């Protein structure tokens, strides 16, 4: 029993030491932190948003005006909450995700779901609403952001989870 206990103690020590070190490293910043510092840059700065037409989530039929839709509104509100200006970039999903991978955009919206095939190029947020897709299956709505920007990710997710988004989904799309 003796060696077992000492092994466990050693493991706990290693983890505690690492936790403490990382805690100190992260002190003054966020935990989890951004390797590229996205949240610090965006707060009080500019949030670069890729939008792909997909009503009711994102509606870009207004032309030059700001986009409408549930997700467009959510992003606008989130940007307000961290004093950021929103810069809208319209395009196809594939190109927008490519820009996320190249760190040219901060977030992409357009009715993405947790089953998105883009999960190896972009990080998908936790789901904040459920809806019935055209295929008749229930889908979990998500947004795409840069890989590993975990402070920004958790900040956006926390905001989204606080909203009552299920109520905004049109009646016929509720699961």
């Amino acid at each position, binding site marked *: 029993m003796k060696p077992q206990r000492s092994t466990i103690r050693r493991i706990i020590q*290693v983890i505690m030491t690492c936790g403490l070190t*990382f805690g100190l*490293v992260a002190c003054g910043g966020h935990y989890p932190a951004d390797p590229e510092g996205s949240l610090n840059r965006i707060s009080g700065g500019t949030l670069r948003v890729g939008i792909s037409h997909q009503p009711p989530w994102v509606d870009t039929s207004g032309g030059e005006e700001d986009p409408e839709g549930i997700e467009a509104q959510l992003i606008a509100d989130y940007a307000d909450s961290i004093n950021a200006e929103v810069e809208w970039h319209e395009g196809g999903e594939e190109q927008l995700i490519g820009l996320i991978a190249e760190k040219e955009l901060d977030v992409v919206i357009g009715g993405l779901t947790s089953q998105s095939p883009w999960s190896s190029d972009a990080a998908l947020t936790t789901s904040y609403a459920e809806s019935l897709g055209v295929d008749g299956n229930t889908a979990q709505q998500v947004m795409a952001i840069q890989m590993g920007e975990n402070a920004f990710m958790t900040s956006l997710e*926390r905001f989204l989870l606080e909203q009552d988004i299920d109520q905004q989904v049109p009646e016929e799309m509720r699961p």
Partner: protein
Amino acid sequence: MTAKRSHNTTSFGMHDLPPEQQETLRKAKRVEKINILTKVAAVILIYAVAGNSQAMKAAWIEDALAILPPLAFLVAIRFISLKPSPRHPYGLHRSMGIGHLVAAVALLVFGTYLLVDSAMGLFVGEHPPIGLMEIFGITMWSGWLMVVVSIIVIIPAIFIGRINAKLAPVLHNKVLYADAAMNKADWMTGVATSVGILGVGAGIWWFDAAAAIIISFDIISDGVKNLRGSLADLIDSRATESDSRTPHRLMADVRDRLREYDWVDKVDVRMRDQGQVFHTEAFVVPPEGRTPSLAELEEARTTCADMDWKLHDLVIVPVGEMPAEFVAQIDEKEQ
């Protein structure tokens, strides 16, 4: 422990086990059953927490692979307890050798997967995303949950690995040794995962991968060692101790015992490991004009075979001179 189970724990083929080995075998079977259950539970638990997160995907693949060694052990134990039959005149002892091979390959695949997966992640600069998670109405960073789960699932692995390392030498069972290595690999991966996730949380994106690469070398080396050992036994290398290197002491014991007979001039032994018990041939050259009688040969055979429970399948071959194809196997040890 029940009457139903005990019928196949008292012997390996024709070999009756001494009480200590019977007891150890019962323990080993119990431990390995618990082992499988904890691994299945770990796979389910990790899958539930990890969902589609890349960071923990490796962890549950590893736990799934760790089911193989105890499974191989339990299956092989069933086979080697069968009696020899006309179709299987040597018994089915090699099943334990196959079990050892399965366990070794599982260990090697485990280590290689970890190394390749982490190295690729590091090479392409993969920044692991770890976001929030809602569980029972509480929103928390899923990194905390991953750390807690990684720690919970390694606790049984630490104990099972230690117990197996203690039981293995009593039974001379290399599958148990390999499984002990597998459990060590398992808990080391768990520690590396939690440390890695904490590092990722601090914004050091490469920490997870770096921690995994370091321990993958240790796991690969265990895998290679076991693979070499299992292959050596399967191609009839000289029987070795459980380190798969040192010649087994019983080889010298049998030879020395036979030397004491006055009808023995020269004697040498070849012995191979059938996975759990040995197959032994002792070649004896009697002195001029002193051919042993059948009764003497029979008595010597019984005496030698009774020296250890692994030696029951032993033959003594009286010869005029050592056959040309016979190579003495224990000279190396004596030098």
